[in-house]
């Protein structure tokens, strides 16, 4: 028997709002793109295609065999390839993505902010992607959709990089100065700006999860942390782990700091304990590190034969998985949840794909699962922010 409440529920669901036209159009095109190529052609058509392919391959093979250059590879069936969008798309469950390559910015947020190809020196999204902070020449600028108030802060040098604190209240940024760069701090609303450290390397700072400390690389190539609650600086010499630091990354959920060097990685969990250290072979050149769920670290590494994502776990940084690809990596970002990874991967000369990849399994192949954007750039490093 249907009660009054059940009737109200049915009627209430009937009156629910509709999806927006934009969301419907976007979903329709994504769904149809996921359909993949037609793989059920008529038998006659298939025979005709097979005959034509056999003829062309046979003729080509005969010609190549005659020259002694024949190299035939037979593998598994070709995988369905999703088309790479020309416009940056926001992955499901995320607030926004920003990509900086070759001095240009591509940005898309769930709130409706979209930028394509804007000249900037750096860019970073706020934690919920409500704002973006960008470096334009000697100014630090925030951008926001709708009625939120943007601001412009003039600096005394070119803005090299910026990092928004996890609580969204502060921005640490680097300014290029003659001789060495400066690490500075500004509130999220653009008021007081102060100098934190005078001489640092041009490495993007990284915030501790509690927003009370920021990691950077000092002029001697050591990882260092500025504690905002005490005003103290601590340095940690990780150069024995493969040389000078070139990237620092705090775990989003714990006070553990990964320090990437020229040929290795160190993880500092406690300042009064030795850092865990993993060094790589001489041909390996680590690019960046990100934190996954359960305290695992993902290291992007380039070698002469291609790029790889290496998953490290445990206090001794044991290798838990690795995905290898033929193309070089240009950038890395982990999802806000740490459950997946976005990479910038060189596709061909001057072309880079930004895409989400599957979790690296031991001996697996680096597969692009969900393409986000394809850009033309010759940049060797691509910065990705994923919120």
């Amino acid at each position, binding site marked *: 028997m249907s*009660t009054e*409440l*059940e009737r*109200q*529920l*049915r009627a*209430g*669901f009937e*009156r*629910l*709002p*509709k*999806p*927006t036209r934009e*969301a*419907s159009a*976007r*979903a*329709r095109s*994504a*769904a*149809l*793109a*996921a*359909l*993949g*190529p*037609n*793989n*059920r*052609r008529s038998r006659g058509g298939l025979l005709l295609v097979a005959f034509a392919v056999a003829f062309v391959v046979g003729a080509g093979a005969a010609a190549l065999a005659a020259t002694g250059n024949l190299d035939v590879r037979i593998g598994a069936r070709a995988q*369905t390839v999703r088309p790479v969008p020309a416009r940056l798309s926001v992955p*499901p*469950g995320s607030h926004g993505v920003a990509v900086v390559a070759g001095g240009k910015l591509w940005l898309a947020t*769930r709130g409706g902010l979209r930028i394509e190809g804007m000249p900037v020196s750096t860019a970073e999204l706020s934690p*919920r992607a409500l704002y973006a902070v960008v470096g334009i020449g000697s100014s630090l600028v925030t951008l926001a959709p709708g009625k939120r108030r943007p601001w412009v802060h003039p600096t005394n040098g070119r803005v090299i990089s910026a990092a928004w604190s996890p609580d969204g209240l502060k921005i640490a940024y680097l300014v290029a100065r003659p001789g060495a760069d400066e690490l500075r701090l500004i509130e999220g609303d653009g008021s007081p700006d102060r100098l934190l450290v005078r001489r640092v390397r041009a490495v993007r700072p990284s915030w501790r999860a509690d927003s009370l400390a920021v990691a950077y690389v000092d002029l001697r190539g050591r990882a260092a942390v500025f504690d905002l609650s005490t005003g103290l600086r601590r340095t940690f010499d990780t150069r024995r782990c493969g040389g000078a630091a070139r990237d620092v990354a705090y775990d989003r959920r714990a006070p553990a700091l990964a320090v990437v060097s020229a040929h290795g990685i160190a993880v500092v969990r406690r300042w009064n304990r030795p850092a865990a250290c993993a060094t790589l072979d001489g041909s390996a050149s680590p690019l960046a590190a990100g934190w996954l769920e359960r305290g695992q670290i993902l290291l992007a590494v380039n070698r002469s034969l291609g790029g790889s994502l290496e998953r490290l776990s445990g206090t001794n940084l044991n290798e838990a998985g690795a995905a290898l690809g033929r193309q070089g990596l240009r950038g890395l970002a982990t999802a*806000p*949840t740490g*459950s997946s990874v976005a990479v910038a991967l060189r596709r061909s000369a001057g072309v880079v794909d930004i895409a989400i990849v599957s979790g690296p399994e031991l001996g697996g192949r680096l597969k692009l699962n969900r393409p986000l954007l394809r850009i033309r750039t010759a940049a060797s490093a691509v910065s990705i922010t994923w919120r």
Partner: protein
Amino acid sequence: MRMCSDAKLVELARRGSRDAAAELFTRHWRTAWRAAYVVTGRREFADDVAQDAFERAFAALSRFDERRPFAPWLHRIVVNRCLDLLRTERRLVAGDAELARLEWHDVSDGDQELLDAVAGLSLQRRVVVVLRYGLGYTPTAIAELLGIPTGTVNSRLARALEELRADYEVNDVDRA
């Protein structure tokens, strides 16, 4: 295409007909989105979840059992995606007021109260309520769709209605 059954459209889409796939999308998009909207409580999540569910469904169309109806299969994917998303978000921002707040911007006051009451249900109960009263499935069909016994569906529905009755009718008294 509009005269074709879902089964025929699935068959055509599997053969590569984009028109058939587009018709399937048109038929089921709004209900899938609305289900996602009520379960997740946010437009942006509903956009993501429903889009992702369609992408997954279309990508897996070749593995779909043609003898079974399309809609329950799609709705199962929607529900699973909603649950995945909400669990992930909850883990990421536990107690975050911004996420906890629901956004029934464009519904009438009466419906808003009802939806608030539905949103206050546990995820498991909310899902069965949406499937029963939003999408019109019978308890047996819900049980099959979620892979749980019919008795469990009935008890979740009964408890959900009891909870809603207490919550919504108290609000009703307040309004009066």
